């Protein structure tokens, strides 16, 4: 349900399957643990393998974004299909986040133009 990849100060979280109440606690814990363990500035979520997400799932994502945003971090999004895009748009996430076409593009933008690690 969650595959994490840290590249420099960017955490890329690949979400998988149905992101709802059933997985919310585990997802929250997994993300918090990563934020505690690495020195992370920016957060990128890859939605390519997400088949469903509701406001509970979005809440987990936005809660973790709030934590990095407090230290000036940015929120990146990858792999938005029309279904997921609608939910993100409607909740206002699209307005505060940056959408990227690939992992490399995200890393380049967020790591300030340095080559990806």
């Amino acid at each position: 349900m969650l595959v994490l990849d840290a590249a420099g100060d960017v955490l890329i979280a690949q979400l998988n399957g149905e992101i709802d109440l059933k997985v919310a606690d585990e997802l929250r814990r997994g993300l918090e643990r990563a934020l505690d363990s690495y020195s992370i500035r920016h957060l990128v979520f890859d939605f390519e393998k997400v088949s469903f997400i509701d406001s509970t799932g979005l809440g987990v994502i936005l809660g973790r974004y709030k934590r990095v945003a407090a230290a000036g971090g940015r929120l990146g999004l990858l792999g938005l299909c029309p279904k997921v895009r609608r939910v993100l748009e409607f909740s206002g996430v699209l307005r505060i986040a940056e959408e990227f076409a690939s992992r490399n593009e995200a890393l380049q933008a967020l790591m300030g133009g340095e080559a990806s690690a």
Partner: protein
Amino acid sequence: MKPCRHSWGVKPVLNRFRLEFPSLPGNVGLARVAVAAFAAQLDPTVEELDDLKGAVSEAVTNAIIHGYGNSPEGMITIEAVLFGDAIEICVEDGGKGIEDVNRAMEAEFSSDPERLGLGFNFMRSFMDSVQVDSAPGRGTRVVMRKQFGPRH
């Protein structure tokens, strides 16, 4: 609570179901799947089915976390009715109820600081109408309706 009453003008009821399950987080997905499989009889578009799943997910999640405070001991009931080319979905819990329904339905209002307060907004944007009937100690019933677009 009295049972869900369904009526939508003079349209005949084509089919219906009633599903009861305990307030466990794993059952949110069961509710989505049941409603989607049921509504598939009307040959909805993929977007229409996604809307139903989204709305059901919000209502059932609310019953579990707000209604029953995450206790697995509560029971949740979903009733769905097909009227012509429209569906009515009723999600009901016997949980703690809502003091001020109008306030609860405001965008970004949540009694839980960890949550977004967007559940009712999602329901309203996914469905044509959302009615909430609730009182403290008497549980909550959410009745949602959606008319499907003309068939392809």
